[in-house]
């Protein structure tokens, strides 16, 4: 039991030590505490995984946090197959990224702070996935958001970083508000927050409705949609995706860990965790699938024309998360989690690779100003290539298996399945295209940066390249645990492993159809790569020609469908204006200043009067006492 408890606790200890003693005592040795802690968690997670593999499910309630009548909140953890997979993903990738950060963050003056926050994040994320009830889940959910905020704004001297942090935080508020309501509604409906009590009861609530403003709304549907609100925010789905690309202002290891591999997948995890509820509401399922499918293609299309290396990968993340939700919405929970798992490796690799590039180019992120990096940084190039091939769905690599699984399940899922499958397949083409556009522009051709930069080009130190190579192994091999049965019977081990929690996907199809889906996705992936080669692999003016021929579309994509501008006009500006009017016009700007200085004018003026009574004269004090007593006597007796 201690073993399981230590999994989240080790990073927490690392956080406490680093934050308390980092500034004065530990300084640039912070990794000596953080790395062993997270490696320890990894080893323990492996051990927990083998326990689950041998058929155990660990569900421990440590104690009751609050007992008050019928309100009872236990603190406990649950390690079932789903959690076990998440544990492996979170701790293995965290370990590699922690090691990578030793090199990447070397010499940063916030070095200890970085490792402290990163450790806190790992603790929060592990709490989130190991929760056995909704309150602990909610705690982890909010805590990872807070860490994300800290880390996006890590370089707080940079205004853009601070703004991006705020944006992430505020956008997530919208989603989390819904999520919080969902948790409350679960308690009201089921009288408990424990998974083990809520999920078995789910069936009995079917058909129950709740009256809101005169409309009868299906309770389960409402719960699921509210929970999904949280997922949309955290996992950056439309329409709350706007924060994720901006979050790239944070240090690259953060982008890799939090904004690619782990935190943003929390929404996917949560929906999968709540599959007993979601399965009961076709409305909620359809919503999940539609949001996922449209986000997949929408984000991929933006990624086609961006020039910032990290933003391309960020849109790719949004798009891939869309795939996962698409799978969940079609009832293929295992496929969604499988993709979460493989995606974590190749996406973390892409980010760390881009970090390696940015590191050597001294914070240059525009791929138009790169080129020819292949010969300077071979390890970065080859690992980056492997990740790109994986995400493009080239057979044999991780991404192929998980993406194919999703495409097939969506195709066979019935209902809107065929339509969503078509969307996803087009998105797959785009994925391959933007991935290789990035490869050709950054690594091939001639270097387009300054001579100064060219002079300093070098491969990153081995503390950074070794994690890249290890992640590359994951990007190749992680998917081998889920080989479809038409290729090798009984090799979908992850599907079978997760089936006790997530069930078997519904939907039927012939072998011929399955071959067709697989073949088409392979062809589409290769086509995307070839198109990228045709446009960027050789020296042509094709990109410019196409760009000018489809000027409006190009501009629309380049400006990310103007979503940010739209929000700015419809939400941010009006709110800002209104609050400025209220605070600056109505209440006078001095209040803000006054609040900081400690005397809010409103209460202040009132308090000032009250304070006058406190004269310091004993006779006055006695008088107040006597008067008080007399008033009470007068009121009570007369």
């Amino acid at each position, binding site marked *: 039991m201690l073993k399981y408890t230590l999994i989240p606790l080790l990073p927490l200890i690392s956080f406490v030590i680093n*934050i*308390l*003693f980092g*500034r*004065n005592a530990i300084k640039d040795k912070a990794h000596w505490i953080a790395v062993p802690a997270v490696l320890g968690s990894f080893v323990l997670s492996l051990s927990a995984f083998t326990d689950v593999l041998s058929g155990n499910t660990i569900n421990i309630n440590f*104690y*009751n*946090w*609050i*007992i*008050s*009548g019928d*309100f009872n909140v236990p603190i406990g953890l649950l390690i079932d197959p789903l959690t076990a997979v998440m544990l492996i993903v979170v701790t293995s990738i965290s370990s590699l990224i922690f090691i990578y950060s030793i090199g990447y963050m070397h010499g940063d003056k916030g070095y200890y702070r970085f490792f402290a926050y990163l450790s806190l994040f790992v603790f929060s994320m592990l709490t989130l996935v190991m929760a056995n009830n909704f309150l602990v889940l909610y705690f982890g959910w909010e805590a990872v958001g807070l860490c994300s905020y800290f880390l996006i704004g890590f370089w707080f001297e940079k205004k853009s970083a601070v703004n991006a942090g705020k944006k992430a935080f505020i956008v997530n508020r919208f989603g989390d508000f819904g999520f919080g309501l969902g948790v409350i509604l679960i308690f009201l409906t089921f009288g408990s927050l424990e998974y083990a009590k809520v999920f078995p009861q789910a069936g009995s609530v079917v058909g129950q409705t709740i009256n809101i403003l005169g409309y009868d709304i299906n309770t389960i549907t409402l719960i699921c949609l509210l929970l999904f609100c949280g997922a949309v925010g955290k996992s950056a789905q439309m329409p709350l995706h706007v924060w994720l690309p901006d979050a790239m202002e944070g240090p690259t290891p953060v982008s890799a860990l939090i904004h690619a591999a782990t935190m943003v997948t929390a929404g996917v995890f949560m929906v999968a965790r709540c599959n007993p509820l979601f399965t009961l509401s076709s409305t909620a399922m359809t919503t999940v699938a539609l949001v996922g499918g449209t986000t997949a293609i929408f984000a991929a299309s933006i990624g086609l024309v961006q020039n910032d290396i990290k933003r391309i990968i960020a849109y790719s993340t949004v798009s891939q998360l869309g795939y996962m939700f698409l799978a969940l919405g079609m009832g293929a929970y295992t496929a969604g989690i499988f993709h979460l798992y493989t995606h974590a490796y190749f996406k973390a690799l892409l980010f760390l690779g881009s970090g390696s590039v940015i590191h050597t180019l001294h914070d240059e992120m525009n791929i138009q100003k790169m080129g020819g990096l292949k010969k300077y940084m071979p390890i970065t190039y080859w690992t980056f290539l492997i990740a790109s091939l994986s995400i493009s769905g080239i057979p044999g690599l991780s991404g192929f298996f998980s993406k194919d699984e999703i495409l097939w399940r969506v195709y066979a899922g019935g209902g809107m399945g065929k339509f969503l499958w078509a969307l996803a397949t087009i998105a797959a083409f785009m994925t391959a295209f933007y991935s290789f556009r990035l490869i050709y522009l950054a690594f091939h051709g001639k270097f387009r940066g300054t001579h100064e930069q060219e002079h300093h080009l070098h491969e990153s130190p081995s503390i950074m390249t070794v994690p890249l190579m290890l992640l590359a192994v994951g990007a190749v091999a992680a998917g081998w645990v889920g080989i479809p049965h038409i290729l090798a019977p009984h090799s979908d081990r992850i599907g079978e492993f997760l089936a006790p929690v997530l069930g078997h996907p519904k939907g039927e199809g012939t072998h011929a159809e399955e071959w067709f889906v697989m073949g088409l996705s392979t062809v589409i992936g290769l086509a995307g790569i070839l198109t990228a080669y045709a446009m960027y692999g050789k020296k042509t003016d094709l990109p410019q020609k196409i760009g000018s021929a489809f000027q409006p579309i190009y501009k629309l994509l380049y400006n990310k469908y103007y979503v940010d501008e739209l929000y700015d006009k419809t939400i941010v500006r009006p709110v800002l204006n209104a609050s400025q009017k209220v605070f600056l016009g109505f209440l006078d700007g001095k209040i803000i200043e006054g609040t*900081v200085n*400690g*005397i*809010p004018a409103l*209460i*202040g003026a*009132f*308090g*000032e009067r*009250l*304070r006058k*009574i*406190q004269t*310091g004269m*004993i006779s*006055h*004090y*006695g008088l*107040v*006492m006597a*008067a*008080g*007593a007399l008033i*009470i*006597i007068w009121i*009570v*007796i007369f």
Partner: protein
Amino acid sequence: MVLDNTILLGIRLISPELILICTGLFLLLLDILIKRKETVAFAGLIGIFLSIWVNLKLSSLGLSGNVFSGMFVFDRYGSFFKLIFYITAILTILISLRYLTIQKGGIGEYYALILFATAGMMFMASASDLIVLYLGLELMALSTYILTGILRGQIRSNEAAIKYFLLGAFSSAILLYGISLTYGLTGTTNINEIASSLQALNLLKSPMLFLGLIFFIVAFGFKIALVPFHMWAPDVYEGAPTSITAFMSVGPKAAGFAVFGRVFFEAFGSLHLEWSGILITLSILTMAIGSILAIQQTNLKRMLAYSSISHAGYAILGIISATPEGVSGMMNYLLIYTFMNIGAFAVLIMLNSEGVRGEELSDYEGLAKTHPLASFIMLIFMFSLTGIPPTAGFMAKFYLFMAAIKAGYMPIVIVAVIFSVVSAFFYLRVVMYMYMKEPKGEVALSTSGSLNLALIITAAVTLLIGIFPSVFLEIAKASVGGL
């Protein structure tokens, strides 16, 4: 023989108090013989631990009941409060050592007086007769008057002592008036007998009784600093030595709540409807005045004084609801408040060094940069006083408010929650100063082993109760069984 046995039992049951008083007397002697004040303090601590041990022994023997012709009662209700007093006394001694050296106030009476005051509070908690109650209260009050003024060289300490003494005498007079009115009506000073004779003599509608009742409210309200009987508190808390402010803001306050509960539930339980109305008004006033004026303060000690006033406003909800959950919620609240409030004062003491008071808000600017650990501990206390999970303060409020809601006092709980939010302003302002401002200069911390120990205990307990609250709640719940 029967008589002898009951007297013997009585002496056994008051032996914890006797030990404290004897230790106190011994300390007075020791002070003359020994130069090192630490030794005196240490001897005092030994006396307290001896008293705790005896108390536990008595409880484990299953002894309980009324002794000395029903004047003294040994029950779980009283024992829980005594636990609070013991903790208060121990922590106060721990935080006093270094502080007194800096303030040049290290005299032996100091520790003896703390023990006397503690014994007085223990008598209050165990009093089942108004006379014993009064004696205990005076023993406590007289000791604290002196302690307030013990820094003879400092004007503000003297001023505080004289204010406290005069107003305290005023409130004692009112208490005696209340006692005599009740005695005149019922013919008894025994708390249990008052209740039965109120019924028997059909006195429940007597205006004289109400007058007596109100006098009790005034006098007890003075001790726990309910508005409008709180006027002394800010001045006295600010002027007293910080270690004594810490002591007064928890120990005598808890003692006030103990007698409040005992008298109002046992003697005047049948008049709950009447007195709860008065208390609700006072409670709202207290929360409001305490919070609003705390915002005004830039001196942390004074801010904590007002905060302590507003906390009394919350805790009185337990008396108002008058249910077992409410009372155990209140006891829980007071226990938790003891740790977090003494802890906050201990941080204040740590910032106090030669020539630097370390009480102004500006002294905390950028403390997190220069002393991260001290700031973090202060942050725990400020969060806890605000009532933010996972600190003990949240649990304290949660259980108390929950109990009040169940007892049907929803509106006043809403008011209490609103003022909790207001209070976040002045607690979190301290955190803001520590973490978001740049340090102005090097701040020297005057740490010492005993102060560190007190800080570790208070911070650890504040966090532990926040994370594992059920254990502590069970103790509080079990204690109400005695009432």
